[in-house]
């Protein structure tokens, strides 16, 4: 217990080691995070709608508020006040449990994701030794949200979406996990703060970890798209075949929860990618928080870009890509990196 909450960063005025002060810090950090995260997620939805609009040569949402900036807020109110409809024959308990698990998993991921705010000043809730394994453990819970939502809805489309999703998530979880092993081997730690602070020195330059782990980076990017059920890997909710996949039978606030969780997961995946490969908040001139936002935005733009550009994969080619290309490549990447690290000491 105490090991999990152990803190080894700067400790101004003994605040962190004080039993009451420690909890005050944790609660404040959580509230700040919650507020920032929900706002950011709402604006990611807005950003996606605007960008996809531009990709399709139309203006996108621009009516509500200046430049349409209040669109997400209005949509949120609309979904909250909508009639919460429940189809007949659903498995009531699991039907209601599924969206709750989705939001819980999406929020809990951020318990170990740190971000730099100012020089030497980070916001994190827990800096644990197992670091990123916590994120994997929590994202494994996300499968239950989709599976249970699909199963309990008493609809064939939902069930098919849920089953597809379970198979897809399990297949790509392996590649996702293995793609990061070279990073751990090089840094020698699973703590996200250590990984973000790790810099590769080439002559006078300080380069991000990306230069040493390019293959892991590509595998992570692809597997992360599959893990978040985004196009071109969005088979669990393929509109043309499955209406809406696992969330076909969800409406109103319950649908909003699935939607929130999905976009929050995209933000988490982008934040983790920027920490693992681009050095998180490290960068010249600008303060850390701007660098971090910039890098996260870069990944978000990338995900929106491929969504509006690439067609959806067929199911068998999705599985082939995961098991026959990404997984062997990830394993080879681990072995080669381990050999090189042992060789060069």
């Amino acid at each position, binding site marked *: *217990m105490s090991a999990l909450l152990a803190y080894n960063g700067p400790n101004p005025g003994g605040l962190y080691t004080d039993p009451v002060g420690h909890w005050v810090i944790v609660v404040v950090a959580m509230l700040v995070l919650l507020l920032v995260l929900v706002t950011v997620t709402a604006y990611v939805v807005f950003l996606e709608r605007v960008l996809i609009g531009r990709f399709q040569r139309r203006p996108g949402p621009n009516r509500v508020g200046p430049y349409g900036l209040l669109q997400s807020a209005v949509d949120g109110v609309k979904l909250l006040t909508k009639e919460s409809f429940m189809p007949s024959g659903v498995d009531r308990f699991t039907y209601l449990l599924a969206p709750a698990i989705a939001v819980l998993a999406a929020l809990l991921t951020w318990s170990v994701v740190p971000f730099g705010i100012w020089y030497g000043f980070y916001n994190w809730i827990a800096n*644990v030794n197992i670091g990123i394994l916590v994120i994997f453990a929590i994202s494994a819970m996300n499968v239950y949200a989709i*599976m249970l939502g699909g199963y309990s809805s008493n609809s064939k489309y939902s069930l098919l979406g849920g089953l597809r999703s*379970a198979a897809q998530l399990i297949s790509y979880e392996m590649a996702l996990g293995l793609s990061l092993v070279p990073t751990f081997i090089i840094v020698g730690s699973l703590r996200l703060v250590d990984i973000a602070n790790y810099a590769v020195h080439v002559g006078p330059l300080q380069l991000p970890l990306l230069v040493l782990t390019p293959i892991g980076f590509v595998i992570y990017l692809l597997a992360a798209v599959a893990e978040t059920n985004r196009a071109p890997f969005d088979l669990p909710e393929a509109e043309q075949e499955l209406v809406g996949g696992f969330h076909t039978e969800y409406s109103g606030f319950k649908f909003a929860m699935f939607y929130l969780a999905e976009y929050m997961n995209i933000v988490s995946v982008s934040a983790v990618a920027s920490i693992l490969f681009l050095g998180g908040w490290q960068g010249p001139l600008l303060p850390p928080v701007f660098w971090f936002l910039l890098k996260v935005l870069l990944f978000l733009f990338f995900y929106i870009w491929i969504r509006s550009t690439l067609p959806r994969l067929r199911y068998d080619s999705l599985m082939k890509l995961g098991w026959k290309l990404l997984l062997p490549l990830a394993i080879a990447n681990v072995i080669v990196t381990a050999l090189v690290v042992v060789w060069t000491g």
Partner: protein
Amino acid sequence: MISAIFLAAALIALGGAVGIVLFRNPIASVLSLVMVMLALSVLFLLLSAQFIFAVQVIVYAGAVMVLFLFVIALLGPIRELPTRRLPRQGFLAVIVAGGFAVLLVSMLGNLRYHAPANADLSVFGSVQNIAFGLFTTYLYPFELTSLLLLVAAVGAIYLSRERRS
């Protein structure tokens, strides 16, 4: 604080274990088993075994139980049918349960718990510590286990392959 968490996790684990047997709906049974797994992971965390906690959640709750759920959802919502009882089932159940209880008490009754002599709990269950153990003291059992798993995987693929007549 820690004993309160232990008590809650232990009760959830026991309740889940009872639920697995008592529920007629297979999905509810699977969810009870997931609860047991998650409660056990909390117990690992209380023992400062951070890495085992993560692995427990990722492998058991995350992968194995999802496969259970997958198969059950694929087979459809079949409720377990009430079956005929064995002759003298109650009597047999009492004997088996009593025998098991005697066995447990005789095995575990003399155990005395004590904290490890001079272990630093902040490194005790860390990834580095577990890895060190796995690749030095327990290297041969570890490698043999991975070989066993490989054989099992190859066997499963062999058994499920398409047969050409």
